């Protein structure tokens, strides 16, 4: 019963609000109207998002790791002695045997080279975030542009871009990355660019194009064309802004795949980087501690962190999916 009354009364309230709003908005300058509408949309979307407990859990995990990333330089500067706690060149002189089990001084123990595991874990968080977000931005920029251009122009441009996308999604993604990084020197930035290009011209581009096709036939695109808007003006001012929600959603999934790929590659020791979660496991492996449950602190924290951060971004992506894609909503 309660549900029903809610459904009936809700629209009425909104209609009244909208009339009042419209009057107020008319008196404001344009930029304030835009700002206000954006703010209102963010607030509405946050309300939808916060209903989703699973999405909130993901956001919580992301914030937890973000705090870890920020805390590391602070701890290094004021609390931890750089000679002992440096994630790369530190050595813990106070332990007799390396790797040392967790203790009060080293909460997660030390690795076979005498370095503090917690410090390594926190130091790597920063680069994982940087890699994930950089790869996601490249992916989405390319994907959105490719999708919008292919949908808007159609014809030969569409055919070429989509055949290229078909070719890319047929490639085994992880295998290609492994082959590339085995044969070339790769660092985090190059890896982010490669992941961004592969997934932006590939799967993400296809999904965004199918959405762009539905936007292309809307009336306001016709209106923009009639009033003399150039092709690029229409693409960047009318089509791409409307693709933004979907692009943002795919950013989350790209972060997951980027962090995962980096972890796999550095697990195999194929990346040219100083420290990362995958590399921590690789270090344990090369030192011969991989198959030994007794030295769990060498592998479990790093492996768990990769898993948790990947699934956190994925969970947030799924929650956003329910906002962007109304067919999946509960009501």
């Amino acid at each position, binding site marked *: 019963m309660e549900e029903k009354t809610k459904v009936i009364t809700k629209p009425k309230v909104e209609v009244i609000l909208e009339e009042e709003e419209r009057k107020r908005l008319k008196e404001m300058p344009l930029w304030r109207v835009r700002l206000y509408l954006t703010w209102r949309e963010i607030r509405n979307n946050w309300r939808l998002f916060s209903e989703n407990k699973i999405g909130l859990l993901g956001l919580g995990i992301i914030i937890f790791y973000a705090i870890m990333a920020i805390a590391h330089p602070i701890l290094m500067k004021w609390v931890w002695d750089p000679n002992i706690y440096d994630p790369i060149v530190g050595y813990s002189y106070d332990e007799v045997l390396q790797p040392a089990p967790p203790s009060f001084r080293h909460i997660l123990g030390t690795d076979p080279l005498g370095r503090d595991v917690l410090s390594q874990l926190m130091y790597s968080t920063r680069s994982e975030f940087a890699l994930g977000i950089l790869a996601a931005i490249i992916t989405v920029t390319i994907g959105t542009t490719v999708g919008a251009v292919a949908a808007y122009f159609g014809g030969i441009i569409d055919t070429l871009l989509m055949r290229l996308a078909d070719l890319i999604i047929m490639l085994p993604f992880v295998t290609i990355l*492994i082959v590339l990084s085995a044969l070339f020197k790769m660092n985090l930035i190059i890896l982010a660019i490669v992941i961004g290009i592969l997934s932006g011209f590939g799967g993400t581009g296809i999904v965004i194009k199918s959405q762009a096709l539905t936007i292309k036939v809307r009336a306001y695109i016709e209106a923009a064309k009639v009033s003399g808007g150039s092709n690029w003006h229409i693409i960047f001012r009318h089509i791409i802004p409307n693709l933004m929600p979907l692009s943002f959603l795919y950013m989350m999934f790209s972060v997951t795949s980027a962090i*995962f790929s980096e972890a796999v590659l550095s697990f195999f020791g194929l990346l040219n980087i100083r420290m990362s979660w995958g590399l921590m496991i690789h270090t344990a492996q090369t030192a011969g501690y991989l198959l030994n449950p007794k030295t769990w602190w060498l592998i479990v924290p790093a492996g768990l962190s990769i898993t948790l951060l990947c699934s956190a971004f994925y969970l947030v992506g799924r929650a956003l999916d329910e906002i962007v894609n109304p*067919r999946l909503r509960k009501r």
Partner: protein
Amino acid sequence: MLRYVLRRLGQIVITLFVFLTLVYFLLEAQPGDYAQTFLSNPKLTKEQREALKAQFGLDRPLWERYLRYMGSLLKGNLGISFEHYPRSVVSVIAERAPRTILLFLTAQILSFLLGFSAGKVLAWRRGQAFEYVLTIGGVTLYTVFTPWFGLMMIWIFAYILHLFPVGKFVTPTLWRGAPVDANYVFIRILLSAFVASLALFLVLLATRRLNLALRRGLRGAGVLIILAGLLAYWLPSGITRYALDILYHLILPVMTLTLINFAGMMLLTRNSMLETMREDFVMAARAKGLPDGVIRDKHVARNAMLPVITSFIFSIAFVLDGGVITETVFSWPGMGLTLLEAAVAQDIPMVMGGLVFTGTLALLGHLVADMTYAYLDPRIRYT
């Protein structure tokens, strides 16, 4: 339909050609060559390295090597592996591929069955605590760091519980006096699994339209006959204990892979189910007063199955992708491990061979997926 298939086959050949050309030049663009890996080996003189280069044809100009490679590829010859010298790439693939196929096919089929049933229930029980637990568990498994998860499985099941072997695919002591090699057994396991599932499928298809009691009886009898046939083949053959040894080594990797892959299937089924549940025919089925289980299994799940099946076929085509990671962790000497070793050792012909294998498989997978889709959904017709 036939015209469509032929056109797609033509496209596949072109795509494969473009893909191989791209990969070939990419691999050639890497610094150094195979002979360089011996640079630090003091036993090899400069002359010997030059001789090695000439032997592998690495002293020829790039375009000549490319044309030669493509020419011999047309004849089905993938060249000779540098690392496994003097074996040809084709023979290495023929040796390793059955192992990968057996491992991944088993895991994929299991995860499909599990994931589809779990996804059905998940969509049906929307909003219950059960859904949250299964979704979070599913997403965690779906995005789990595969090497780490494999290690955890080895720790738990092989080290602490001592249930399964740690890695590798055979027990060397058992195989010392074996009359046949491992691949002989592998291929027979694969063949009998294929024949058995084909027979099972035919039995299910033949009894589809019968009434309930008769159907159950016939299906039970069919399963029994298939099992009896398998036993009749394997028991007198004398290699059963070797086959069992392989299967014993197979359990842990299959379990790991199934757990990882089933989550993806489950989440996909759930989304597809939720979309199908809004269709009018579901409401009609409810209005008719059909039992809940019938609506779920016969009306919603059947229609929601399409994207899941497509993704299942795709995932078979991508066995090598997951294979590199899983096979490394379980030291399962299949295609993935071979490809990784070849890439690290700059064994270009082997890397190319692995990519030809996986590329062909992926392209054929796409074609099969499209055709299955058209077969299962009468609304889609290709002309």
